[in-house]
């Protein structure tokens, strides 16, 4: 049923339809609405049987999830940002143990400076942990991906992280076609663990593995993700068959058929990008978009195929590897190497900075002119940066940059207000 609903609520209700048996909660913005809603459903008896556990940290949340999953329960939790980093040791552990936990990551920047707004730094920090990472473009997709995530995780015994942009999606109220319980039940079979803690058939889970087998263990994990490259589209197709809705998959292309410039991005910014692309198309540019849903495993072949005809590839992403550049851009560049296409890395929307259609249009125009640099920071306040650089050069005790910048920007803002 189509409902006008907050993204968090849509995800929470969809997760509940997946009949999780253990859910752990630790509050951190912007995922709190999800976990609050699941908790309420458990308390109200709408989701049963389910153990809802208020833990003392994200580290505990993932740890409880590990125990529950190893004991054979379908397990769910959600986190964001610092929370993900606080649980990172357990995040790796869950993947290493092959436990099919599903976690929502309400993407948010990582401090310092502390920042509660959206970007993808958190997801990128656990890129190599062994979790499957799926990025949702809309709240509809966010909801749908959770159903697919449980099936994928449990088929492969790999944990799955559904990434949805914090606030931008989690707090947005928009139309979501909510699934029926019977549809979910038909799509998602009961969890049949590959290994389980059973007193009647005891095994030791979590052995110490030395050099003689560690590489093989890791390679097997890699192979499971390679299997996922097959299973993700298959599951999306199966999902489409029962819901009539195309959600998930490895990636989705938009107006790329004849495009010589293709923008590549993850998550909700794709909508704004599409609007900008439409406008540039109207202006006669051959521009398209590829939205990547499955960031890990990274669909090399599908990406290469989707980008094969483009000469210019602009990777816009809400994260970057300090000291190098875009993270997604690096992956894309590696995939298309050897072709004639050039990859441009655009870092945008860090710490919640709005990525506006206007800026994107300008970016595309710049690209069309051939002025785009290989690494661009969208809407960067160069003047503020320069002032801080100067200050740092002039005095040793220049103070903290974040506070200095805030002071500068605030002054500027106040000045502009006076003008208006």
């Amino acid at each position, binding site marked *: 049923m189509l409902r006008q609903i907050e993204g968090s609520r849509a995800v929470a209700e969809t997760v509940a339809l997946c009949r999780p*048996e*253990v859910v*752990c909660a630790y509050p951190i913005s912007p995922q709190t609405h999800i976990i609050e809603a699941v908790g309420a459903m458990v308390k109200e008896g709408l989701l049963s*049987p*389910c*153990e809802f*556990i*208020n*833990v*003392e*940290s994200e*580290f*505990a*949340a993932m*740890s*409880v*999830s*590990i*125990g*529950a*999953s*190893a*004991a*054979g*329960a379908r*397990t769910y939790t959600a986190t964001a940002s610092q929370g993900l980093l606080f649980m990172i*040791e*357990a995040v790796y*552990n869950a993947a290493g*143990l092959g436990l099919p936990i599903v976690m929502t990551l309400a993407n948010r920047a990582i401090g310092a400076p502390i920042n509660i707004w959206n970007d993808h730094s958190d997801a990128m920090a656990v890129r190599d942990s062994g979790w499957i990472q799926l990025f949702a473009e809309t709240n509809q997709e966010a909801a749908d991906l959770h159903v697919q995530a449980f099936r994928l995780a449990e088929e492969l015994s790999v944990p799955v992280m559904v990434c949805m942009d914090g606030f931008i999606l989690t707090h947005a109220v928009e139309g979501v076609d909510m699934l029926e319980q019977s549809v979910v039940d038909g799509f998602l079979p009961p969890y049949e663990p590959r290994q389980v*803690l*059973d*007193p*009647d*058939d*005891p*095994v*030791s*889970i*979590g*052995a*110490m*593995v*030395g050099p*003689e*087998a560690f590489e093989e263990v890791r390679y097997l994990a890699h192979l499971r993700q390679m299997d996922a490259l097959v299973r993700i589209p298959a599951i999306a197709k199966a999902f489409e068959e029962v819901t009539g809705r195309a959600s998930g998959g490895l990636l989705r292309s938009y107006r790329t058929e004849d495009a010589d410039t293709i923008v590549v991005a993850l998550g909700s910014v794709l909508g704004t990008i599409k609007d900008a692309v439409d406008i540039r198309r109207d202006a006669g540019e051959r521009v398209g978009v590829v939205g990547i849903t499955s960031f890990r495993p990274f669909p090399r072949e599908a990406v290469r195929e989707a980008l094969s005809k483009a000469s210019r590839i602009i990777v816009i992403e809400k994260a970057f590897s300090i000291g190098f550049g875009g993270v997604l851009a690096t992956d894309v560049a590696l995939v298309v190497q050897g072709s004639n296409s050039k990859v441009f890395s655009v870092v945008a929307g860090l710490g919640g900075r709005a990525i506006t259609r206007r800026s994107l249009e300008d970016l595309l125009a710049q690209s069309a002119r051939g002025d785009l640099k290989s690494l661009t920071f969208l809407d960067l306040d160069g003047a503020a940066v320069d002032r801080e650089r100067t200050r740092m050069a002039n005095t040793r005790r220049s103070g903290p940059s974040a506070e200095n910048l805030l002071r500068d920007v605030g002054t500027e803002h106040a000045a502009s207000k006076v003008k208006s």
Partner: protein
Amino acid sequence: MTRQPVRFYQVGSFAVGNRLLDDEDRTVQSNPNRTNSIDSGHRACQGCGEVLGARYALDAAMRASNGQLVAVNATGCLEVFSTPYPETSWRIAWLHSLFGNAPAVATGVAAAMRVKGKSEVRVVAQAGDGGTVDIGFGCLSGMFERNDDVLFICYDNQGYMNTGVQRSAATPPAARTATTVTAGPEPGNVFGQGKDLPRIAMAHDIPYVATATVADLHDLEQKVERAMEIHGARYLHVLVPCPLGWGSASNETIHIARLAKETGLFPVFEAEHGTVTAVSPIRRRTPVEEYLKLQRRYAHLFGQTPRPDIVARLQEIADENIARYGLITNDSEDSVSTGVTA
């Protein structure tokens, strides 16, 4: 709960077995069909106290749960020496995740068992002192506070032995470790630091807290049994001497654990809902020197420049324990757990 003493049955109340007792009055360890939760072939040091403590506790828990037990293990010696690929020494369902998260993982297992309708399956989490009082403390406190249905057992060997004997918050004053060397005016670990986890556990008001040593098997098994009768968060703190870390002879493990209790340095008691309900009285009061001299980690107190002043301070700690818990009783030559009035 008091244990019936076995007076005058040749070996009295302390030996592992007693052919003169009825089967049900014998220890789990005396039973040829005991679980051997942790089996031969493990790579613990000669004379390891921790593996003994683990087998004692888990075999008792296995009996108490009719074999329906899952154990969660923190990283540490016990984990490393028991499960190096491709062999495990565990005969029970066992899970290792991380160093600091055993209580939370156990919470998860217990929740899963409950939601799966397997209420008969009981969950034990175990860790060394580092995994308990230091890195695992946050998760442990959370597990206590939620009163999750987990028995947490700390095998306290008073330091990070797995990593080569470093100080933990359970390392006693004056003890030498790799990070509390015997230099300076106060050699070894400093006085006035450290966590008394049993008391912290009691402050959580959980239903059951107890301490024990590997030297009194009957007491240890009885406490496990009592703990297993209760649902909710339970804490058992077992002193397990470490020949490597303490610099003691491998055959002295049990003897040293016994002296830790008999000196008063390690009070053995049990508490329910935050109140001490019983103590194991000191049977043969022993000066701390006798305990300390068996361990090279205290050798600097007795060497060419002996430090009787430091020994005296350690004796003070023992005396304070004795006073706090009432460890000297009228029949202190008769170490039966005695109820105390709180």
